[in-house]
């Protein structure tokens, strides 16, 4: 009641009971503050926070397609431990991440360093580098699938032309399917991370480079001793984002390989999708989703702690 009746801050004389007035003002501010956040928060809370809560309940039930859910305790998690495909999906996700994260950092940082020079055509190139990132997964997957085609594809034709007589089977080979996916996802992501690195490079003080140059440091020494340390905040952010994005990799694989051949590109997200939407084992799929949830959260927290320790 009092909150709506509260006098304007500037209108009321300051000598009338300051403590009560302040608490009323605070309450009024809180109401206004909440009213700003509420329209978004209703959607956010209902579609993100609530599902996460439900997830943790579902993971302990045998929720199926009929919505029947009995509490089964940790049975789902025990089953996960012994499930061969889950193990495959887990290790494939790690395998993908271990290849994708360093490769993307090296390539996008290299491009950013290149673009940070005053070369002609830099603006055009920045546009070109960003193009894959704004292209839909479906278009990317279809085009690259044909580019990778072992017998008719341009990639293997180029490889044969430069003397590799037996080029890889790419998506038809269980050994080469994952590297092929990594190539495509790196091609797609590098423009995005390049922009982040470019923005980070703008913050590197030019005078520091000049000074190092005068002191006789060569290009590589300047890169290691000046550029890299100045880029630390950017590098941290890029690594965190890349890690989360790698752990949840899904749509590209779904359209490119659908997990195959065999299970060679089956990843965690797809395991969840298969168990949930294709086999309607919602409870069991949720247990796997909880595993993915904690994998992402824990690794992110670990990275934050490590970063804090290093910068302290």
């Amino acid at each position, binding site marked *: 009641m009092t909150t709506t009746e509260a006098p304007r801050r500037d209108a009321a004389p300051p000598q009338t009971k300051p403590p009560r007035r302040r608490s009323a003002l605070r309450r009024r501010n809180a109401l206004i503050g909440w009213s700003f956040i509420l329209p978004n928060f209703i959607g956010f809370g209902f579609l993100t926070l609530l599902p996460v809560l439900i997830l943790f309940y579902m993971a302990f039930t045998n929720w199926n397609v009929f919505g029947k859910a009995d509490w089964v305790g940790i049975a789902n998690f025990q089953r996960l431990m012994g499930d061969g495909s889950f193990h495959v999906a887990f290790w494939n996700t790690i395998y993908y991440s271990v290849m994708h994260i360093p490769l993307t950092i090296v390539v996008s940082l290299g491009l950013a360093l290149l673009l940070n020079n005053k070369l002609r055509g830099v603006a055009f190139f920045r546009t070109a580098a960003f193009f894959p990132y704004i292209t839909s997964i479906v278009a990317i997957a279809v085009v690259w699938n*044909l580019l990778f085609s072992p017998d008719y594809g341009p990639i293997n034709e180029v490889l044969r032309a430069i003397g590799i007589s037996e080029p890889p089977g790419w998506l038809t080979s269980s050994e080469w399917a994952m590297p092929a996916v990594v190539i495509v996802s790196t091609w797609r992501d590098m423009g995005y991370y390049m922009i982040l690195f470019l923005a980070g490079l703008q913050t590197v003080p030019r005078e520091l480079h000049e000074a190092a140059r005068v002191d006789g440091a060569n290009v590589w020494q300047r890169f290691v001793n000046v550029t890299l340390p100045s880029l630390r905040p950017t590098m941290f952010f890029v690594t965190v984002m890349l890690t989360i994005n790698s752990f949840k990799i899904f749509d590209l694989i779904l359209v490119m390989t659908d997990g195959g051949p065999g299970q060679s590109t089956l990843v965690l997200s797809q395991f969840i999708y298969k168990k949930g939407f294709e086999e309607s084992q919602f409870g069991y799929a949720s247990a796997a989703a909880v595993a993915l949830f904690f994998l992402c959260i824990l690794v992110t927290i670990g990275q934050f702690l490590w970063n804090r320790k290093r910068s302290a």
Partner: protein
Amino acid sequence: MTETQVLVTGGTLRKLTAPAPAGRARSRLTIGRTLGYIALIIAAVGLLAPFFWMVMSSLKNANEVFSVPVVWVPETFVWQNYIDIWTKSNMLVWIRNTLFLAVSVTFLQVLTGSFAAYGFARMKFAGRDILFLAYIGTIAVPWQSYMIPQFILLSNLKVSNTLWSIILLQAFGAFGVFLMKQYYETIPEELSEAARLDGLSEYAIWRRIMLPLSVPAIASLTLLTFVNTWNDYLGPLIYLRNPDLWTIQLGLKSFVSNLFDTNYALLFAGLTISVVPIAIIFLLGQKYFVEGIATSGLKG
């Protein structure tokens, strides 16, 4: 401390050596530049070749797509593909659905995102920081981990298999709040303080001061959200079962998997049509894309 010292000595030393570097340094510079250009050209070819191949294949005959040796540029351009795709597929329906979704989602995301961002950036109240932490925290929570409970929730509300499901799914993301908040915090507090003294309510400050001043951020958010919704594949895949509701991504994907003898030239024409609007939007608003990503990314 040491940094400034280095700066100072660097400055004086540079002045002393300034006239010295001549021939050798310059020739090394030219070699460096040449190598730079070569690297740039190789990277550009690698980045753009798939697009070139897509567009060229969309102008081939069906049997030319898989010919050996690879035909990069067809002898005659088959423009007919771009006419046939409309009659041999439901492109028009798909584009209409996608456009409807992208516009609605973008509108809602920008509106609720910038509104909430004002609350987070400018209002002080108990629980604000914890709430914002929850928003930020979800960045580390992949959608794939809670897509099942979310689907069950929306199915029970009979929203799945309607376009509403995708609107709900995409419109309230934390990303918009985050991006707008970052930008609001660069706007001087004095401006809103002065407006407050003039008797403007907080809502009026948001509408009449913050919104006009944050046009670049709004442009970034609009473009990024539009492109994301246009390109989204997983959301529509899970929620939209009825072919009349399909988006362009679902439609084109079904085109690949359903027909036994997919006419790939036709498919490439469809893909090109689906990519072109996004490419044009990107070229027009490139500055805002880049700024949006750089600001939302770095300060996070």
